[in-house]
């Protein structure tokens, strides 16, 4: 199946992945071949088949809505690439 370069770049934008030109070309070709292979599923008639989202059926488990404090804020914040006090700092959100 043919995937255009524009489609590759669109999907990469959705996935927040910056691609080099060479990567975009390679992925266009590889994704096309993989999706061709996967098209074999169209040979199966799946009308009326219920999709599986989890392999072991157990319904939705419920629990009490109680807060369990984690307790070690510093262990979390110490992983921050850029922090200011108790905040994670990021580059500006509104780009020019």
């Amino acid at each position, binding site marked *: 199946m043919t995937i255009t370069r524009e489609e590759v770049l669109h999907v990469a934008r959705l996935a927040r*992945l910056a691609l080099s030109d060479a990567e975009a070309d390679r992925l266009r070709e590889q*994704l096309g071949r*993989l999706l061709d*292979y996967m098209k074999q599923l169209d040979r199966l008639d799946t009308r009326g088949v219920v*999709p*599986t989202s*989890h392999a072991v059926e157990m319904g939705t488990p419920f629990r009490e809505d109680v807060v369990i404090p984690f307790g070690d804020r510093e262990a979390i914040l110490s*992983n921050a690439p850029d922090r200011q006090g108790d905040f994670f700092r990021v580059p500006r959100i509104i780009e020019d």
Partner: protein
Amino acid sequence: MANVPVHEWTLLEAARKIREKEISSRELTGALLARIGALNPKINAYITVLPERAAAQAAACDEEQAKGSLRGPLHGVPLGLKDIFCTRGVRTTCGSRILHNFDPPYDAAVAGKVLAAGAVLLGKHNMDEFAMGSSTETSGFGVTRNPWDLSRIPGGSSGGTAAAVSSAMCFAGVGTDTGGSIRQPASLCGVVGVKPTYGRVSRYGMIAFASSLDQGGPIARTVPDAAALLSVIAGYDRRDSTSVDVPVPDYLAASGKPVKGLRVGLPKEYFGGGGLDPAVKAAVERALKALVDQGATAVEVSLPHTSFALSTYYLVAPAEASSNLARYDGVRYGHRAEGAAGLIEMMSRTRAEGFGDEVKRRIMIGTYALSAGYYEAFYGKAQKVRTLIRGDFAKAFEAADVLLTPTAPTPAFRLGEKTDDPLTMYLSDIFTIPCNLAGIPGLSVPCGLSADGLPIGAQLLSDHFREETLFAAAGAIERAIPVPRVAPLEG
């Protein structure tokens, strides 16, 4: 059994000898750390080795024992964990450069359980990046080599764990399996690997790849060792909403049970294809004979949708991965690209720099398969075919208690042999993938060596929560077909 070097003891022997004070945890841990120091530079099974932490843990175990208290069944026994399990205070990378500096603030459920049972943590095992791979070649920390032949891959994604266990750099380890990542490397390294029923082992703190398929499980040198370790890590956990609240049976006892009357199903689709190496076929046939000689009966079964499993898997798993891996954005932890002018540029460049080619490829497939206009044609279709594959197994288990198949179509291949063609690499998981799609348990047990002296594994599959049947059948194969479990390496 005279003069077996300490590092070659089984997990159960090591635990017993500590309990009976034949050896201290300090001495045993020291011997394993020395072994790692000598072999890891060649094999690269560990991303992180913890000599100081392990020695301190071992000393604490010895002190507690001197006062008459034992932590649990693994008291003082040195183990390793795949670097996908978060370990508090120990860097956890998931094989990715994007997490090269991640210091988890908590322990995964599996890590907590092995530590509470008394295990000493030697280090964290190498793996394919985010568990995406079948050869450990996609790791951001260098390839792991197969201890049986250093020019070959150990399998993947839990290749570091399988290589560490088979080269006696730990007594056992815990890996994860999304499409064969425990069973395939266990087969290629000549050790025992178990993928439990989905929901049997908590996924809390286990870095997510494909949430509806991922499951943690033991890799060990013998069936009883694997059984004992599964008993430690299995069980309900309220922190994992897909964890199933059913009692944990005595798997160790199950591994010694007779197989008389057991119905062993042979799925014809797994033996017919052209890709199956004749040596693998012959070894699996010997495993069947071992079971039949002990009173089991063989029946042919059919899993008619087998040839659709690979496509189904390579849509479902990347779709879930593309969503799970959205969290690596350079904001809260891990790598961040320098000098970006805005937030989206920072995230896009962070991910471009931090992820390797295979991870990018799968994020792209997954995002494509979930994107507007394609969801029904790809992801939705795959979820329906998944239902058909589950139905195949449900029907097969009416006629058979356990299924016997090859674990991998060939013994270990050479480094670099399949890195250029994703589809060829994916085909090495063709026998292991259907099990994850169906959520059933699977186990790989050594059943022979190829003419080149490379290990071959047989795969056993059973119905949901019937791990005991797997252990009984695997134990019977192991007792009948002795295969060396420590690779013949000169250290």
